[in-house]
């Protein structure tokens, strides 16, 4: 087990964890700040050990469609990208949602809009959580705040994807992707054989044996009544996920009079803010949503009895704050503090904003 403890970048941890958790294929296209994922995979050459396929595609569009193909075969397949590349993948993600396909996408956000900056940002919360492509769909969104969680959520993302036949997104940012921390890598899991896939996932297209009907992976349905039914089925699945899969972390929340709500890298900075506040005797807590869809709506609402106000801190102009406001439903004030364009606020800066909010 000791050799499984390593000092790794978040991006490298994703690659290592993918190989270990029985991933069948990775298809990607280079873009900063996540290129180390494919680079690490290419260095580790898993096709020689576990048999995992790693392929550099000609574009993000091609990569997500290779994932669509692999996922339709019941394989554990993944891709990764960063903001401009994620925009290109939206088409494929919508098709995967429409065809009920499982898959894993690691999105390491950078600043936008447009080509923007390679520095860190959380401005793709809406794109990921609200469904960036066309149609009414959602993706399970896991927001890692450490390198350990980059590894853990790669594994968890696949598990949830196959539990619900849905795309899981690990929504990280440049900070989490580029930083190094101690990480305990997951144990090795065998890749499923084609026979095991046939057994577990009867919908998978591995070739039609004589004793079953053809399997067709499609999102197309021209009959409106049937198409509405497909949508209803999707919504039912999302409700089920909302019921079962909410995850979050609470830091110094027991006696908190004020609450910071932040995810991913900004939650790490906010954790420092909580330390600084507590040193000054301010009863500040941090609520960190780990799943952004499903969002911990009820869990945040529960604090409205004990907390006087909430400050959300994001590396954007205010995106998750909308979901926090929906959660508290007007009961207590919710404000937003964010920096953009790759600027990261300091813990001290956030504390200052918090103190102003308290003084109000």
């Amino acid at each position, binding site marked *: 087990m000791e050799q499984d403890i390593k000092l790794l970048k978040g991006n490298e941890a994703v690659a290592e964890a993918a190989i270990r958790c029985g991933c069948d294929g990775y298809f990607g296209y280079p873009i900063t700040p996540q290129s180390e994922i494919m680079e690490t995979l290419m260095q580790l050459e898993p096709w020689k050990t576990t048999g995992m396929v790693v392929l550099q595609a000609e574009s993000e*569009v091609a990569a997500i469609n290779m994932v669509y193909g692999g996922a339709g075969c019941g394989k554990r397949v993944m891709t990764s990208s960063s903001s401009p590349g994620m925009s290109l993948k939206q088409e494929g993600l919508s098709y995967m949602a429409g065809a009920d396909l499982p898959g894993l996408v690691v999105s390491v956000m950078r600043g936008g809009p447009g080509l923007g900056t390679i520095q860190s940002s959380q401005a793709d919360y809406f794109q990921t959580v609200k469904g960036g492509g066309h149609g009414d769909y959602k993706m399970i969104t896991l927001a890692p705040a450490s390198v350990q969680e980059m590894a853990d959520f790669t594994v968890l993302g696949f598990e949830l994807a196959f539990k619900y036949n849905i795309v899981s997104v690990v929504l990280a940012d440049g900070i989490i992707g580029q930083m190094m921390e101690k990480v305990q890598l997951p144990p090795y899991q065998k890749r499923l054989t084609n026979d095991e896939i046939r057994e577990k996932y009867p919908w998978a297209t591995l070739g*039609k044996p004589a004793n079953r009907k053809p399997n067709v992976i499609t999102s197309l349905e021209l009959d409106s009544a049937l198409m509405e039914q497909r949508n209803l089925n999707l919504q039912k699945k999302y409700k089920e996920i909302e019921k079962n899969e909410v995850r979050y972390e609470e830091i110094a929340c027991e006696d908190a009079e004020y609450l910071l709500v932040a995810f991913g890298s900004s939650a790490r900075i906010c954790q420092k803010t909580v330390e600084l506040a507590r040193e000054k005797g301010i009863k500040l807590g941090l609520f960190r949503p780990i799943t952004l869809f499903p969002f911990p709506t009820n869990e945040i609402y529960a604090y409205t009895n004990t907390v006087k106000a909430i400050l959300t801190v994001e590396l954007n102009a205010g995106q998750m704050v909308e979901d926090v406001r929906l959660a508290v439903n007007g009961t207590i004030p919710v404000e937003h503090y964010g920096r953009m364009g790759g600027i990261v606020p300091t813990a001290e800066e956030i504390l200052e904003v918090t103190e102003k909010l308290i003084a109000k």
Partner: protein
Amino acid sequence: MTTKDIIKPENLVYAKPSVMNNNTMHYCPGCSHGVIHKLIAEVIGEMGIQDKAIGVAPVGCAVFAYNYLDIDWHEAAHGRAPAVATGIKRLLPDNYVFTYQGDGDLAAIGTAETIHACNRGENIAIFFVNNGIYGMTGGQMAPTTLLGMKTSTCPSGRQEDLNGFPLPITTLVAQLEGTRYVTRQSVHTANAVKKAKKAIRKALENSAEGKGTSFVEFVSTCNAGWKMSPAEANTWMEKNMIPVYPIGDLKDK
């Protein structure tokens, strides 16, 4: 001799291929798609690979190809079939994976996917139906629309200065190291149908041998889009399409 005597198995000279099901096709009467579907079904049946064949359907007239051949299918987004097929074939190297695409899908919106799958030498078969027009959306200009040919988005005929030239995508992919077998066929005469079937078989056989991409273009008619009778469309194709897209093998290595 009664009817019963006539339909004895030993008298059988023609039948619907077993890989084809009984669904009524949505194609217009006179369309080349039906013939090409049937040929692919025949070859899959004759090769005994129904349990190993996986098709990737396009967006375009053949979007419902999966309704007619009883094999496993993926329906791809517009133009992405070669990428989808790449994902499938890389993960299922022992299966026979093919795409079935029209000209708009393969040579306009999916040009990058087509060229790069061919250039990587993906061990897939690409079946490319070129009728020089967008049939599904109602007869707009395609990348392969001939100069002077009228469509709803070039109503006075395709002009090179306005619309550019017909794209000879098949000639282009034949230049790539990754392609093994590149051919142009048609299905407008009995003889052409026979040759086209051979090409389909060769393409599928190649894909199992792992020596690169096989690419079969079918120069085809769209009598509805061209606003002609099926017979007129065949004649028009012979006279106008085939000189620009000449029939025959471009590459066989």
